[in-house]
């Protein structure tokens, strides 16, 4: 079974919820799909046994030996990535989109497309089972495809190790990498917070899961920071037929747990937040072959 935790926007405490859910399972495959800012490995400190290079795309590079600075390529580039400076042709790697047109039109064949290969995917073991995560290098694109790879790897490991549950910690937002995270999963949990923008982002995330017909439930985190808005969110959820599986109070220990490289369930098992998360996890995995402990 695949369970994905997402949030309309960052900062709602999604990763803390994922970490808690992971700790609540006997054994799990945890896949950190927030490849732009992977962070669960910081908490669980996995021992990696595999590192894979992810080629995110290509960039044009000029071979100075061959280039005659004729400037033929400049006008072809639609991304304003080629400049002539002091009679020399330069490619701005930030602006280059990798379309390859300059390389095709260069009469000297002086431009080559080189892979961008600074992104990585890791897999390893941690105290609750197996972990897979991707790290996209700054400025590199195609996070959606890296998420696909992470999920694929997670599935393979789950099969090999005979682990029933895969937990996906999704990226923030509602863009392409989020779509890659939730397509085909069995359940999505949206973590939101009681702010007006939180409600707005929640609605957009719900639209997404409804479009894909995925069973969805909601956790309202830090609800007591603004109870009026929390109630508004709750009302919206019941109107949409979404189950609010937990309303978590603000608790400093959630952050302290993180500082101690633990999930809240490990750090303060008797706290109200931990208990609420445990019952939420049970509600969600109810009926699955292997649920929360």
């Amino acid at each position, binding site marked *: 079974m695949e369970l994905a935790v997402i949030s309309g926007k960052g900062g709602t405490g999604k990763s803390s919820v994922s970490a808690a859910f992971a700790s609540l399972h006997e054994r799990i495959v945890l896949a950190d799909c927030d490849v732009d800012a992977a962070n669960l490995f910081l908490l669980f400190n996995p021992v990696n046994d595999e590192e894979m290079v992810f080629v*995110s*795309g290509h960039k044009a590079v000029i071979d100075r030996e061959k280039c005659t600075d004729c400037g033929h390529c400049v006008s072809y580039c639609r991304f304003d990535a080629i400049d002539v400076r002091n009679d020399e042709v330069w490619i701005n790697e930030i602006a280059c989109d990798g379309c390859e047109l300059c390389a095709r039109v260069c009469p000297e064949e002086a431009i080559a497309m080189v892979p961008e290969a600074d992104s990585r995917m890791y897999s390893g073991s941690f105290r609750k089972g197996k972990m897979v995560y991707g790290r996209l290098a700054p400025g590199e*694109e*195609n996070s959606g*495809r890296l998420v*696909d790879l992470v999920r694929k790897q997670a599935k393979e490991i789950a099969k090999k190790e005979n682990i029933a549950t895969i937990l996906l910690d999704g990226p923030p937002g509602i863009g392409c990498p989020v779509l890659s995270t939730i*397509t*085909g999963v069995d359940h999505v949990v949206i973590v939101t917070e009681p702010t007006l923008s939180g409600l707005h982002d929640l609605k957009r995330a719900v639209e997404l899961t409804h479009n894909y017909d995925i069973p969805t439930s909601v956790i309202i985190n830090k609800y007591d920071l603004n109870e009026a808005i929390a109630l508004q969110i709750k009302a919206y959820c019941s109107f949409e037929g979404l189950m609010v599986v937990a309303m978590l109070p603000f608790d400093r220990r959630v952050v302290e747990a993180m500082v101690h490289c633990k999930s809240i369930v490990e750090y303060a098992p008797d706290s109200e937040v931990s208990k609420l998360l445990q019952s939420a996890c049970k509600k969600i995995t109810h009926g699955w072959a292997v649920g929360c402990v």
Partner: protein
Amino acid sequence: MKVAISATGDTVESSVDSRFGRCSFFAIFDTDTHNVKFITNTAAESSQGAGPAAVQLLAGNQVQQVVSGEFGMKVKPLLEQLSIKMLNLQNGQHTILDVLKQFK
């Protein structure tokens, strides 16, 4: 007639891959000769547009019917236009062999 099934591996024991565009392999089954061959889905590696690229791959292999978990919005109209039939298999727990038996 040729049927393509999205597969996670290149044997008949592998399971059906629920994703169409980004599956690892396609099993191509010829209902007349009962021959099965596996082709690598070269489209899976594309940074974008894997679905349409996979359609081109299958069309090039004279496939007339596809079995997979889901067909995206980009893919459906293209398959329709090429008169390739889509068979939606919810739940990717079946093996390729399970599916092949349906055609024999």
